[in-house]
């Protein structure tokens, strides 16, 4: 899209979202797309407005981002499947974003506006633990039965390595083959979400543990 087209798009979105959200929406251009940041209490209003007034009836996706102390960012992309007068052109869409606090990760469900949001919200719920209030069937979608925790949260520890160390070598000097020839002082690489080296060592004997004290 040319800058001109994007500008018209952003203006159209701003016109629609301004009144619908009581002026709370922040609409701007973002990497050649229209981005609308709305507060969580205006989330449903904003979705309804882009669907009804802009003709963005196609719900593409919804997901979340763990932004640590800032909370969870929730993003959804909706677009127009066909040209319509006074609305978006075919293929044009809006990226809607909101943010919910960490301690109260709740958002009203978008299934009342887009039925297709159902599974997206279930997935976001199981991966991030964001509760979509009013969702008809909020239960895990993809994870195996009995899975505990929300694996895409940043605090989720990927503990496989604690149970059993990786049998291969990621870097030179790590394998059995060149043990003893390892370059000294090489920084160990750990994938994100993997606990550090201290996890791989046995716990130091704590005073009291030996006398039958309470563990942890």
């Amino acid at each position, binding site marked *: *899209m*040319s800058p001109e087209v994007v500008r018209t798009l952003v203006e159209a979105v701003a016109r629609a979202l301004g009144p619908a959200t009581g002026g709370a929406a922040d609409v701007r251009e973002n990497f050649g797309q229209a981005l609308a940041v709305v507060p969580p209490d205006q989330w449903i209003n904003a979705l309804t407005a882009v669907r009804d007034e802009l003709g963005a009836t196609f719900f593409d996706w919804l997901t979340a981002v763990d932004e640590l102390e800032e909370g969870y960012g929730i993003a959804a992309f909706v677009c127009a499947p066909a040209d319509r007068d006074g609305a978006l052109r075919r293929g044009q869409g809006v990226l809607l974003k909101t943010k919910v606090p960490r301690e109260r990760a709740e958002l009203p469900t978008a299934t009342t506006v887009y039925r297709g949001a159902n599974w997206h919200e279930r997935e976001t719920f199981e991966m991030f633990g964001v509760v979509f209030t009013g969702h008809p069937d909020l239960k895990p979608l*993809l*994870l*195996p039965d009995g*899975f505990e*925790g929300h*694996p895409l949260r940043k605090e*989720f520890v*990927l503990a*496989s*390595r604690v149970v*059993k160390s*990786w*049998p291969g070598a990621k870097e030179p000097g790590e394998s*059995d083959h060149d043990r003893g020839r390892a370059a000294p002082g090489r920084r160990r690489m750990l*994938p994100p*979400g*993997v606990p550090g080296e201290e996890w791989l060592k046995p716990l130091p004997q704590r005073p009291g543990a030996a006398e039958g004290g309470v563990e942890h």
Partner: protein
Amino acid sequence: MAVNEGKALVPAGAGAGAETHGGRSAGGAAASTGGIALGMPLVGAPARGFGTGFDLAPKPMKVVLNWGRKYSLWVFNFGLACCAIEFIAASMARHDFIRLGVIPFAPGPRQADLMVVSGTVSDKMAPAVKRLYEQMPEPKYVISFGACANCGGPYWDSYAVTKGIDQVIPVDVYVPGCPPRPEALLQGIIRLQEKIAAEGTGSTGSLRRVPDALAGAEGGGPRAEPRAMTSGARALKSRWQRLRTSAQPDPAAPAPGAIVPAETAPLETAPVAAVPVEPAAAATTQRKGTGSAADSGPPLTTLDAPTVEVSRPEPSPAEALTVEVPVVPLSPTEVLPKIKVPRRHYFRELRRARDHGLSLFDKAAHDQQWEYDDES
């Protein structure tokens, strides 16, 4: 065909590659052929079910049964990720594991003898893998294809990936790689076939794995010692060489004027010498020769699969079986005209394609109002 060069067939990684575990009988200790014992948990039924008939059969019978079994492996591809593509490649014309007797058209696990788990097994999928494995009739075999199916592969740290399919079902052969080349699967299949051939016979096959029920009767025996393994590797090599000589010639392999390998020549002529003079059979030989010549293009004189012309009087059907065919010594033949390679056209096409691509780009740039610097 790429099946010519022994080197290409057994890639460096796969040489020490397709590893077999002691399967259900051996513990984790004597697990792999020569690599580091990873202490993978081995699960599953202690013995393979062959049926009473097999258990009671005399040894020659078992050999025959095993022989039949190992060349009709109906395979069921449990394709779960990228590795499945390599499996499919191995089943297609170029690598073509059907020539090893592996038949990729099992309608489902209930009709399959072999399951190839190729790809990333997630914890959610693992019960399904186990279930379909249990639906397969005995005796059944499993090849774990690729790093993911072997041990979790690059997803070792994942919250959702099973750390090796051998935590769920017993595995006969592991094929390493991410993804393994189709040749590695071929080698894995051959390893499995050797394993099958040794089953229940108490023979010192390189990959012997005597089911526990029989192990007592046959006196057991050492399992998977390194010595046996090396001889197995040798057996494997010679098998490949045999395969290779009977395969079609690779047009790219010998340089022009290359000396035909000494071993190749007699083996190529052997079928002709053995052919009883039946018009049909002779015609097949002929056709095979000319067909490969046509495939291989211009350097006709350097072909190492020669067209053998058999001059013979028309025999009556009765004397057909007795007539000796004089074998013409191998010499370069000039049966087919040389094929002209349309080089120029090729480059012209290439140029045209490039120009077309550039014009598309220009059009797109114009439509989208991109700005780009044309001068640099």
